[in-house]
């Protein structure tokens, strides 16, 4: 039985199935009872620090038991959580904490120094890094949130590079979780392998849905060692494998994968970016008994569309139809609905549509449009799609120049601004180049002031100091001049074409 909020889900499961395994991390298994007690204990600590219903608590944690405690602890005390990529750098974090007006930050010991510095410059925000403790917390009287209260602020890259905080209520989040649970047919017997960061909403929902249905989540710190992933699929009798194209392309490139069988693996999901047709075929061949769900979403509505797995062989490039309980359609620039065969912007309607961007009424008004009712708003996705004759969705392209690398959004402008900080860089242009493993690889092109010497290594290092790992360019090319179009603007298309022909 699902609760009105995710915190209620955990309490209920801890009562009915206290000894059932909620999480398995590299350190070992953790029961529902254990997660519940630790979350309550953290909620107590937060409450003592003054965190109340509606306050925002940021978390800067790698995947692990602590991250799960943090999410449920924050929710239990009635506050909203904001999961931050654990490779964030100090200045970015300070900006984010200021924007969020965070009441507290949760991190681990490894990140304590960086988080302390950021929290100090953002206004002396209290930092917590001790999450697991032995003593059981007293049952405190937390002010339980209503479904309409803020549950999370999830930051995503906007096209300008300014991070935008997507605001979601409890209702937004439980609604979309239930819709996904319905089409994946998730249940307590499921054992889901999560290699995706919980700071990424596709990873986050693996945890939230798993706890909601009383399943077991095998939570890995990442996807570093493919041999370990293969071993886990068998040893942990994994029933569900969510991934992005980078994960599947890496697995499919391994020698010996086809010698294994994975009889327990019931479903595989792909989101974050489209899988090439060849990869869809290879997944079907390697995991013949698993249903493959091709999906599409964005943080602004979490999950938007999915293709029913029985159609995947016939339509390997489609992302199907609206998720249960929602509607989608395609519009032209004037707002007229388009029919099959025509290309237009994808629009989304349903209880999963975000409430807007945190502290950004202009950005919110740009993406949220009036809906059918006076109180309703629909979200425009900024992505172009077309419908086929069965009204199934096919992704065409993005409207902006945002790059999708490893399934995550990267705004070229954010990286260009960093590169231009380097003395001697005259111009910088960052583009996405098709890449088998990454989907798109972030590639930077710079031109230098006459007489300057700068090597690509130094520029990459500068990016690594300022940006999250996935945003650091894989390659930086130094040019004497960047190509220009007839308007005198940097010709990005030429840079993409040039890189494609250079590729080994």
């Amino acid at each position, binding site marked *: 039985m699902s609760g009105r909020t995710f915190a209620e889900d955990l309490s209920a499961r801890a009562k009915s199935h206290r000894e059932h395994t909620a999480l398995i991390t590299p350190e070992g298994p953790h029961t529902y009872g254990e997660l519940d007690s630790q979350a309550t204990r953290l909620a107590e600590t937060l409450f003592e620090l003054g965190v109340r219903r509606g306050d925002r608590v940021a978390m800067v944690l790698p995947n692990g038991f602590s991250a799960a405690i943090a999410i449920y602890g924050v929710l239990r005390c009635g506050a909203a959580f904001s999961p931050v990529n654990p490779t964030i750098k100090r200045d970015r974090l300070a900006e984010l904490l200021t924007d969020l007006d965070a009441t507290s930050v949760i991190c681990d010991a490894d990140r304590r120094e960086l988080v302390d510095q950021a929290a100090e410059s953002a206004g002396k925000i209290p930092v917590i890094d001790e999450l697991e403790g032995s003593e059981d917390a007293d049952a405190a009287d937390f002010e339980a949130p209503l479904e309409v209260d803020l549950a999370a602020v999830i930051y995503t890259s906007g096209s300008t590079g300014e991070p935008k905080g997507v605001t979601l209520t409890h209702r937004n989040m439980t609604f979309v979780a239930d819709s996904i649970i319905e089409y994946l047919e998730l249940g307590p017997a499921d054992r889901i392998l999560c290699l995706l960061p919980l700071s990424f909403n596709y990873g986050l929902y693996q945890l939230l849905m798993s706890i909601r249905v009383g399943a077991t989540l095998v939570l890995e710190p990442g996807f570093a*060692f*493919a041999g370990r992933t293969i071993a886990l699929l068998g040893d942990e009798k994994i029933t569900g494998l969510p991934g992005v194209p980078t994960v599947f392309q890496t697995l499919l490139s391994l020698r*010996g994968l086809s010698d294994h069988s994975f009889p327990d693996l019931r479903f595989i999901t792909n989101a974050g970016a489209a899988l090439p047709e060849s990869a869809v075929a290879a997944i079907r061949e390697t995991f013949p008994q698993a249903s493959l769900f091709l999906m599409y979403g964005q943080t602004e509505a979490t999950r938007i569309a999915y293709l029913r797995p029985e159609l995947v062989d016939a339509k390997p490039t489609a992302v199907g139809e609206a998720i249960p309980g929602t509607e989608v359609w395609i519009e032209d620039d004037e707002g007229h609905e388009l029919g099959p065969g025509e290309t237009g912007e994808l629009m989304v309607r349903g209880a999963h549509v975000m409430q807007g961007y945190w502290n950004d009424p202009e950005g919110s008004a740009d993406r949220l449009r009036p809906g059918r009712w006076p109180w309703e708003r629909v979200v425009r996705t900024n992505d172009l799609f077309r419908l086929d004759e069965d009204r199934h969705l096919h992704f065409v392209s993005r409207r902006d120049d945002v790059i999708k690398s490893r399934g995550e959004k990267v705004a070229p402008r954010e990286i260009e601004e960093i590169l231009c900080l380097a003395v001697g860089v005259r111009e910088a242009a960052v583009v996405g180049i098709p890449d088998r493993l990454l989907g798109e690889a972030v590639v930077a092109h710079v031109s230098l002031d006459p007489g300057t010497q700068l090597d690509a290594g130094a520029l990459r290092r500068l990016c*690594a100091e300022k940006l999250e790992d996935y945003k650091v360019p894989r390659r930086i090319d130094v040019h004497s001049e960047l190509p220009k179009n007839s308007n005198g603007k940097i010709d990005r298309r030429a840079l993409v074409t040039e890189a494609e022909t250079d590729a080994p």
Partner: protein
Amino acid sequence: MIPQETTVRAEMRAFIEDNFLYMHPDVELADDEDLLTRGLVDSLGFVELVEEVQGRYAVEVQDVEITEQNFGSIDAIVAYVERKRG
């Protein structure tokens, strides 16, 4: 010609320094240090590392061999290559 253990060690260190360590100029990497937990090599980095080992030493790396025990540190890689080459 089968490379000596010391050659593999030097070559792997050079590869890691050229490809990953230049991003961390302040890091002095010991041969037994964990490349992942120190944040020096990420998941895609390990893909590159495995490809380098396959290409340079003509060993066939099986999927299940891509583990921390075999690729987690310079020591681990050296031992793995030695073992594979018999």
